[in-house]
């Protein structure tokens, strides 16, 4: 069965601090990986995605993630967070089969203080 684990439930940072949110998945085949962000009171928006190719993917707002196949990981990073990054972050995977939906992690709440 496919699953996604996000290790950090709640992360609290000061502005300009560096961010790394962990995401590990369980699936033996080819996967597509995603990070979604949900700002307070808003719907989910795609931050970035990995389908194939360069394992270091860059997304919007200065976020990036690295796919490490040997570790089944897809950690999200940002070198310097801003107060506006306060949100909930979800890692998700899709097994590379037609018709399959996303499997989400439980989410990580990021609180950034100014």
């Amino acid at each position, binding site marked *: 069965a496919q699953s*996604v684990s996000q290790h950090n439930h709640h992360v609290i940072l000061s502005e300009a601090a560096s961010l790394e949110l962990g995401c590990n998945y369980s699936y033996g085949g080819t996967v597509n990986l995603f990070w979604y962000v949900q700002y307070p009171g808003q*719907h*989910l928006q795609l931050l970035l*995605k990995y*389908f194939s190719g360069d394992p270091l993917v860059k997304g919007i707002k200065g976020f990036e993630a690295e796919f490490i196949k040997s570790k089944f990981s897809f950690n999200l990073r940002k070198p310097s967070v801003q107060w506006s990054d306060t949100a909930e972050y979800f890692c998700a995977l899709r097994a590379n089969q037609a018709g*399959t*939906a*996303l499997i989400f992690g439980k*989410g990580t709440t990021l609180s950034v203080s100014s």
Partner: protein
Amino acid sequence: NAGVTQTPKFRILKIGQSMTLQCTQDMNHNYMYWYRQDPGMGLKLIYYSVGAGITDKGEVPNGYNVSRSTTEDFPLRLELAAPSQTSVYFCASTREAQETQYFGPGTRLLVL
């Protein structure tokens, strides 16, 4: 394009009542999904559809029904509301299974 729209934004139901959550997309997407989001639990798939007339169960389908009579619309029906169905419901769509899913703004449902 409006993208994925959902109505209502918020609803309070009494136990045993029924209601339909509406979802419409104007991107001509084949695939549509319904998820529920519970605090600390991430999103879980309720039902999905790969095209008009075709629907299938997801991880948590009990207590829900769906239909897909058109490409644009994918309503979610609750027949006998229960407190366990208190949640935030998100509809999503994608053109093909291997592409990015686009989410609607969500419907917050409270069952008392």
